[in-house]
């Protein structure tokens, strides 16, 4: 079959079929290269980590026991999230955080109503109870990759979304 166009039976000039496929193939070849490069060095997304860095004072554990991490905590510093619940609204509200597997998350919660903070990470999930007016602190370690929600249960509002890689 000739390379460029050809005349078929009734004289119409047609592009050869090989042209279409060669266009598609030449499009996909660079993308295979790009794809393998992207897969090799996963996610160069801008970090939206919230107040990273070690806390100045050691975090005092709340009465709720910390879940034992199934992997040894990574050398990445713990992330502290300051949560404020007041007037039926939560802050932060729907913020996304990028975390690493094995990273510790510390929650400092202040609320004007009795609440339960649920984090859907770790198997059965993590729960921190907060009483009205009394700040509470708790922490957990994210041990599995995936995207998890941290929400205020009674208000039914999402606080943060943890993207763990």
């Amino acid at each position, binding site marked *: 079959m000739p390379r460029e166009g050809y005349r078929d039976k009734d004289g*119409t000039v*047609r*592009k050869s*079929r090989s*042209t*279409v496929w060669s*266009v*598609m193939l030449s*499009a*996909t070849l660079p*993308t295979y290269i*790009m*794809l393998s490069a*992207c*897969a090799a060095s*996963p*996610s*160069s*997304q801008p970090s939206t980590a919230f107040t990273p860095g070690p806390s100045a004072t050691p975090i005092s554990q709340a009465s709720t026991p910390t879940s034992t991490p199934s992997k040894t905590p990574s050398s990445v510093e713990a992330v502290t999230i300051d949560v404020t619940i007041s007037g039926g*609204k*939560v802050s932060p*509200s*729907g*913020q*996304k955080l990028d975390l690493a597997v094995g990273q510790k998350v510390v929650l400092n919660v202040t609320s004007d109503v009795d609440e339960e903070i*649920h984090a*859907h990470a770790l198997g059965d*999930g993590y729960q921190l109870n907060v009483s009205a007016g009394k700040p509470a602190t708790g922490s957990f370690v994210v041990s*599995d*990759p*995936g*995207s*998890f*929600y941290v*929400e205020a*249960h009674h208000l*039914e*509002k*999402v606080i943060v*979304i943890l*993207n*763990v*890689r």
Partner: protein
Amino acid sequence: MTVALLPLHGIGSRDDLPLPFGFVIIGAVLTLIISFGVLLFAWRRPRYSTIGGRELPRLTALIDNRVVRLVARLLILAAYGWAALALLAGEDLLTNPIFGYVFVWMWVGLVPISLLFGQFWRATNPLRTIHRGLCAVARIDSSLGLLTLPRRIGVWPAAVGLFAFGWLELVQPERTTLGVLRVWALSWLVIMVLGAIVFGQRWIAAADPFETYASTIAEMSIWRRVGGSLRLVNPLAGLSSWLPPRGAPAAVAALLGITAYDSFTNTSWWIRTVQASNAPPLLWQTVGLLVMIIIVLTSFSAAARWMGRYTTESSAAYPRLMACSVVPIVVGYAIAHYATLLIVEGQRVAINFSDPLGRGWNVFGSAEMGVNSAIFNRPTAIAVIQLAAIVGGHVMAVVVAHEKAVRLLPPERALAGQWPMLAVMVGYTCAGLLLLFSP
């Protein structure tokens, strides 16, 4: 523990990571290159005017065998009956398999079932089995009813039903409680069966959202009935030869809109805005879902109608004629968003299916098994699957749209007529990629 506002398909607490931005760029670039490639270099004359394919007389005989059909229908009916047992007499906990049965096995599972097995859903629809059974007892012809359903109604009732299910899946508060699901299930059963008694069995094809969804996806499978016998066909040829019923654009728009809305509610902007507002979340969510569906419907219809400028046929006919070309995009979106849900939560349903009443049974031997969620530990593999699904769906859609364009338009106008449709598809695909990136 699931929260009504949580956009997590009602069940499952672990979601896919956002698509890496590099993948979004790759996907968008691929999409553009392929779309322009097809527009400029692809065939100018219809390529699939004859369906072709390979005839399968023995398989046809097997499938059309009355005993085989009856057994298949009864087995499927039994599965639904078992699920109904869980719904009516089971515990109101998330370990009740009915929630996963409806939201995962039925709603997501029908995509691979239809792609792999063709019109399996329509052949084994329990609603049809129930209606047939009632008609057999009453000694009436199941195809006849009290009234005749006008042809013009097409699948409009099913399109409304799809919106309703989307609302149930993503908006309905307390949707993972038995009380709410019972009302919905009963309504569905009654509306479908009563409608079939009034209008004949054609009502089910017109109004059952699941059957419409399944039979639409099945048009993309390799199995096709041509002149009564089954053939193995090229899916592109099969899809191009399908004449969608009236209302199909609305149904397809509902499907795409539901998945797009589901993804959109995962963005920080949406969560922040809805939670900061004093308007009830229910209002936001209902309006959001409707707006998404309307955006898809109007953009698609406008692009299709553009083709009418170049022919003597009325523009209004084109959305229906072109509805087949969006189906691969619907499938791509569904795979990208729900594949991990089906793989992981689908297992959980299979495990809990052995113990529908929560009494410690182990009827199918699966009650002690654990869910293998290893797929979640491979976020790169998930991202590649999502990218392949979205871009692959786009490629198929663009090829089918091009094929339809060269069939419906005069040859010198084929390019001018189809570029809006191509642009709209590029828009859907890039929007899909961006939504997966989930800012």
